[in-house]
């Protein structure tokens, strides 16, 4: 037994252990808590990277929980009975995104949160959320996916309600909770239907059994509804701006990553579980047109916002549209296996990483603004660039990257999406370009309003931990912007291939031949 | 229709009745009482479906603790639903 074999489970179990032990350490001493949190975070990141390296070098990793050996995923007769963690390229990629965002959030929260009791609880919840996201991404079992979905839901909503001394965050938390719970229950209902039909819960096994009856289609529809809601697709996106805008900054970026984890679940359902039976063009068109709608509606709503947090939140929602658009185009092209379909999927998946980094950077900068001035109202902000030099630089970088200004990473992924969605339908591409332009306008306005102009008020400078967190994300953005080819080839490419063509490999790895 | 079937049908109908009451009643405390009744009968239904484990869980959580939490929340807020 080598150590690396256990890496997938350690990546999930260690944050859980960290979360459970955190209050105990806090009771012992406060500094012990920070050391413990840092150690757990570093170890988790190391595990995630180990998993990714293993997956990208040697193929799908399977880990069977509770069996005599990790690879003994099936019993005599060729069916799995235990929970299986199955990590393919896409899962590993999503794990990397979660690790990146989680690391930034953890570093940021050291300097950001002030109140001690709340800080301990929020860090605990952060670790639970992180573990939940990694669990969603690594698991190969439908019900386990649901359980981790609920873990992330509850932890995320609690974090949204962090600032209980104001009424808006709690309100946002309640709304988000209602939506998440209903979505989760729809997912559970569909899992029940699938179980009733095939008597199994393992994704690979179900995928090999599913026949595409009306019942399966209803199950797929329920899954689509629940997961699209959790991902924040228009018209069920309304919880997202509320939650992103009102959550404390370090939690909001994890919420974005959580959204992407549900998107991952959607991809897994569409491309692995149901790929053999669904009529791919129709569902692809559905997803792509929802993506286009999301882009348009979210950007237009962002234009009218007067609150910096909500403005960025709408920007984040519109980015979800690009991902849906990219992968939807890929799905529509799946049955004919056109090359541009793969390109579109690469664009959509690359955009996930870009979005996590850029929106994360913007949200962290907005958190600095809020902490510095005590408000996020754009009408009363102005001239913060005099005091917050580094923050304005980071914000500008984020704006440019998000809007797709050429040398930065946003352009790379959006370019892939434009070109390939043009092949499917020029209207989709036009909407995507229009959304991008509007987004630049929106964020230019936000930047001008908040950071430029005469100094209106004194601002408290950001603490080093916060700057370090933003620095991490900015470095990633710059790296991806300057070397997109490298990232697309070594990270995004395998992930997209795993969805595009990797179902058979996945099934073979889990079901053993 | 065996005895078991009759029992099952009665229980299911009563569950639906309790749930509908929980939805329609304006007085929140009454709605919670109806919800507790529905949960109670749901537990009986689990029992009839030969799932005693689940029945115990539903009894402990649905009947006692959920009711307690709801009642506490109503106490901390207000009892009547606004028109």
């Amino acid at each position, binding site marked *: 037994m080598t150590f690396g074999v256990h890496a997938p489970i350690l990546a999930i179990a260690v944050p859980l252990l960290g979360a459970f032990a955190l209050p105990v350490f806090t009771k012992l001493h406060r500094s012990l808590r920070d050391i413990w949190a840092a150690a757990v975070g570093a170890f988790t990141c190391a595990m995630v990277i180990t998993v990714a390296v293993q997956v990208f070098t040697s193929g799908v990793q399977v880990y069977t929980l509770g069996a005599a050996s990790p690879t003994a995923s099936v019993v005599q007769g060729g069916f799995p009975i235990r929970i299986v963690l199955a990590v393919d390229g896409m899962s590993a990629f999503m794990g990397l995104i979660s690790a990146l965002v989680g690391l930034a959030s953890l570093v940021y929260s050291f300097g950001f949160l002030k109140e001690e009791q709340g800080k301990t609880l929020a860090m605990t919840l952060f670790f639970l959320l992180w573990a939940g996201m990694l669990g969603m991404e690594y698991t190969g079992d439908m019900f386990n996916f649901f359980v981790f979905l609920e873990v992330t839901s509850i932890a995320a909503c609690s974090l949204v309600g962090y600032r209980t001394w104001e009424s808006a965050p709690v309100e946002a938390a309640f709304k988000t909770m209602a939506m998440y719970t209903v979505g989760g229950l729809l997912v559970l209902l569909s899992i029940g239907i699938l179980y009733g039909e095939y008597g199994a819960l393992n994704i690979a096994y179900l995928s090999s059994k599913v026949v595409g009856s009306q019942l399966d289609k209803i199950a797929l529809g329920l899954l689509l509804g629940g997961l699209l809601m959790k991902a924040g697709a228009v018209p069920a996106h309304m919880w997202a701006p509320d939650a992103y805008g009102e959550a404390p900054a370090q939690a909001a970026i994890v919420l974005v990553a959580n959204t992407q984890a549900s998107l991952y679940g959607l991809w897994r359902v569409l491309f692995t579980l149901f790929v053999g039976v669904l009529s791919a063009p129709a569902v692809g068109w559905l997803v792509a047109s929802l993506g286009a709608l999301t882009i348009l509606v979210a950007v237009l709503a962002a234009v009218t916002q007067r609150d910096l947090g909500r403005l960025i939140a709408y920007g984040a929602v519109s980015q979800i549209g690009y991902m849906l658009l990219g992968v939807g185009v890929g799905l529509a092209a799946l049955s004919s296996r056109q090359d541009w379909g793969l390109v579109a999927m690469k664009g959509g998946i690359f955009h996930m990483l870009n979005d996590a980094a850029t929106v994360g950077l913007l949200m962290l900068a907005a958190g600095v603004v809020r902490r510095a001035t005590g408000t996020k109202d754009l009408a009363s902000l102005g001239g913060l660039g005099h005091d917050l030099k580094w923050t304005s630089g980071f914000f500008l970088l984020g704006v440019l990257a998000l809007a797709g200004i050429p040398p930065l990473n946003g352009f790379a992924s959006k370019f892939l999406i434009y070109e390939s969605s043009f092949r499917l339908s020029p209207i989709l591409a036009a909407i995507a370009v229009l959304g991008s332009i509007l987004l630049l306008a929106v964020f230019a306005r936000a930047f001008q309003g908040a950071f430029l102009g005469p100094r209106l008020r004194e601002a408290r400078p950001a603490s080093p931990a916060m700057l370090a967190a933003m620095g991490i994300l900015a470095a990633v953005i710059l790296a991806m912007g300057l070397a997109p080819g490298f990232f697309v080839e070594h990270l995004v490419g395998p992930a997209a291939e795993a969805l595009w063509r990797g179902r058979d490999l996945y099934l073979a790895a889990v079901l053993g031949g | 229709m065996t005895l*078991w079937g009759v*029992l099952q049908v009665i*229980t299911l109908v009563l569950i639906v009745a309790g749930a509908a009451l929980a939805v329609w009643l304006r007085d929140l405390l009454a709605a919670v009482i109806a919800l507790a009744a529905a949960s109670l*009968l749901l*537990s009986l239904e689990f029992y009839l479906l030969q799932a005693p484990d689940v029945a115990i869980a539903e009894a402990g959580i649905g009947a006692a603790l959920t*009711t*307690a939490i709801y*009642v506490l929340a109503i106490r901390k807020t207000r009892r009547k639903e606004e028109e």
Partner: protein
Amino acid sequence: MIGELSFGVAAVVLAAFMGVSVLRLAIGPTAADRAVALDTVNTLVVTTMVLLGAAFGQVVYVDVAIVYALLSFVGTLYIARYLEGGLK
């Protein structure tokens, strides 16, 4: 087995009485009436569970009835405690 059928019949009869109590739950003018109906349903459910445990010939099922007998009390107490809020 001798008694089992009779236990089943008794259980069905009790279930019908449950229906009567749920009627009171529906029409009860005040919340207190509904709470009384809930209490009655509780007792009836406990009895039904014990009877069904005998009817199914499954010993371990009676544990559920014990749990119910203990815990319905807690729910009733909470409701009773906060009935005092009155009829605003």
